[in-house]
């Protein structure tokens, strides 16, 4: 306890740049190995393809900051992408499809939140249960088949541009800014840090950790619903396994991005960089024409590598 200002960095957001190092390495390696990698078309391609993962990884960051987990995200996305397909097919309206998807996603999120915060079921188990239910409903709703014949208004979401910037990139940037504002500039965001860091502090301050936690899971479900629209637009169909395993990519992106699974130590920009690292890795391996099995293994290796760099930093 020094009486004069101690030599402590006043920048709470300064982080070990493991994810930045890894992302740079990946870009350099792929640029050298595949010249087409740094073409502007390909870079736009990486960004467009990363949007979907970003839409899941942003709320996943918040959930993980509460020392929780949402394994149901990929399955809820599958279900809502089928709902978008069915609703837009029968009504011809993209907006109604989106509304239905976000509603269903939010219901799943509220259910997760209630199971975790209200009934004290461990998040891993609770969201594994809802994962199964969402996946099952997706199979029932689609009858196990792809739902095709999607109206153009839906596919436009993926193909259109705004001021010659592809719409998915615009959506991704807006989503990032919205989450950044939410986490760092609102009361609710402040309380997310406390949900993982010290729930008692919230109780002492007269706030309800239960309600706050339910809200975090609800946001997660709503975002999975929104991402369902993008998925259907991208596939030009509602596919009953569209979101399979996406929750693992999202958890990987969050982990690569330097968010800790304990004590509410989260970093939203790191998550965005983590999403890019995963996107660059998949894209680069594609360009090198490596099989997709290698991609899956590489994402795993990526997580370990990024955490390794962070570990090196924090030890020194």
């Amino acid at each position, binding site marked *: *306890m*020094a*009486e*004069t*200002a*101690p030599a*402590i*960095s*006043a*920048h*709470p957001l300064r982080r070990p740049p493991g994810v930045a190092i890894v992302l740079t390495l990946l870009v350099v390696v792929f640029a050298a190995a595949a010249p087409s990698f740094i073409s502007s078309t390909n870079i736009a391609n990486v960004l467009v393809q990363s949007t979907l993962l970003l839409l899941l990884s942003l709320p996943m960051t918040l959930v993980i900051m509460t020392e929780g987990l949402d394994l149901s995200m990929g399955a809820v996305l599958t279900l809502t992408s089928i709902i978008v397909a069915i609703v837009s097919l029968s009504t011809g309206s993209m907006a109604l499809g989106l509304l239905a998807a976000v509603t269903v996603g939010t219901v799943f999120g509220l259910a997760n939140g209630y199971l975790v915060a209200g009934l004290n079921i461990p998040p891993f188990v609770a969201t594994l249960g809802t994962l199964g239910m969402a996946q099952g409903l997706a199979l029932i709703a689609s009858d196990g088949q792809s739902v095709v014949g999607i109206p153009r208004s839906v596919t436009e979401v993926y193909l259109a541009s705004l001021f010659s910037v592809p719409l998915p990139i615009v959506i991704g940037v807006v989503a990032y800014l919205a989450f950044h*504002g939410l986490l760092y*500039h*609102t*009361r*609710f965001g*402040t*309380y997310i*840090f*406390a949900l*993982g*860091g*010290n729930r*008692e*502090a*919230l109780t*002492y*301050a*007269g*706030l309800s950790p239960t309600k706050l936690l339910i809200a975090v899971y609800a946001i997660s479900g709503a975002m999975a619903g929104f991402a369902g629209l993008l998925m259907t637009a991208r596939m030009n169909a509602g596919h009953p396994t569209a979101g399979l395993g996406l929750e693992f990519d999202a958890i990987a992106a969050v982990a690569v991005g330097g968010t800790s699974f304990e*004590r*509410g*130590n*989260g970093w939203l920009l790191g998550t965005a960089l983590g999403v890019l690292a995963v996107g660059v890795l998949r894209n680069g391996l594609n360009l090198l024409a490596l099989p997709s099995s290698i991609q899956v293994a590489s994402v795993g290796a990526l997580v370990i590598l990024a955490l390794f760099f962070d570990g090196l930093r924090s030890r020194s």
Partner: protein
Amino acid sequence: MSAALRIDATPSRDSPTPLLELRGICKSFPGVKALNEVSFAVWPGEVHMLLGENGAGKSSLMKVLCGAYNADAGEFIHHGTKVAIASSADAKRLGIAVIFQEFSLVPYLDIAQNIFLGREPNGRIPGTIDRRKLYRDARRVLDDIGFDIDPTVTVAKLGVAQQQMVEIAKAVSQNARILVMDEPTAALSDRESELLFRLIRRLKADGVAIVYISHRIAEVFALGDRISVLRDGRRVGEVDPARTTPDQLVRMMVGRSVDISYPRNFAATSGKTVLEVVGLSTSTGIADIDLVVREGEIVGLCGLVGSGRTEVARAIFGADLASAGKIIFDGHEKSGGPDEATRLGLALIPENRKSEGLALMRSVGDNLVLAALHKLFPSGLFEPRRARRVSDDLIAKLRIVTPSARQTVAFLSGGNQQKVVIGKWLAAGARLFIFDEPTRGIDVGAKAEIFALIDQLVAGGAAALLISSEQAEICHVCDRAYVMREGRIAGELARAELTEENIVRLGMHHG
């Protein structure tokens, strides 16, 4: 004895009515009267010291003050009017803030966000925070208490002392007029403590009343305007530090009634050395521990909770690694972990017998042979009849009250569970028993039986190291005792010197 020392001093006070007065507060838990008719008052601008041994009722009193516990009886008078403290909101409204040893801070928020958690100034858009005002207000609060630090620093980067300052800033920002602090210097260095004391004097000058719980005699005298001593849930007296000596205080604190009727036969001559510890240190906070335990002896290890007693036990057992020093068991230096300790004949009977000492959902018989599996069944094959014979023998020998060896341990009483733990190590052939608070949570009759059993063990050639917060117990049953203070052995007391007063004197920062 202590009645003569009850100096009901009435020092001159600036204010005629106390800020807060407690009258006849009682609080009971099943089997314990935690607070018994405690009356107590704080005046603005004074530090009221609360002193007492482990379990004297200090934390219960603190929890009643902050609304975490509801008193069974008694009344609170705030500024001359009767009030209720039924919740933490009530306490907050009355201006009472408690700073626990476990802080209520959020590690990855910054200082300003922590100070105003739940009370953030509103920004222009609903739900947002006016960050400029937040940091400006935080700066003002920090200036008020004289803590020169950037309010944008993340709390996780702060040391314990700085985190404590943030807690105090938080309390001050909520206009706390009564600040309750639980052993605030427990984790601070001397220099940090000095800064804390300066802050306390500053708060006093502002008319804040401070209730300060401490174990350190020196700071009690340095800081206290009044001292209340608690013992067994009662306030045994209030004294004026200017007219009291440390020795008088110690005498007020001790004198708990001895509730063990078991008479021990003290051996005239001591046997051969079983355990010798030389200069033992660990990263868990104990340093330079020297101690000896001989055959036929019960050696006490006492000191305040947190003084390092359990850490010494764990290090001897090999559960924590030694960073320096030697542990010599039966003439051989021991270096391995719990495996080796068990094989050599060391038994640790942990404080938390339910989670660490017993397989609670298994039978009495299973538990009794658990530590002796290697010895009983060297081939690796379990022989139920043999196990049954061993466990029935132990049940009879230790007089464990159970319908049969098949009874689930969880359904036994505390005293009988403790016997099962002891029996388990007997079966394994243990020669040195380390008991960590063996009588906690068991009734008086069972206590006597446990001590009879320990006596029986050492009379049969074993040795025992007994950790207990019940100083009366130590004095009653031990041949010798070591007293710990802040991770070190503060002194050794021979049988003739073994009194509660001596233990307290050595265990506290004094004498």
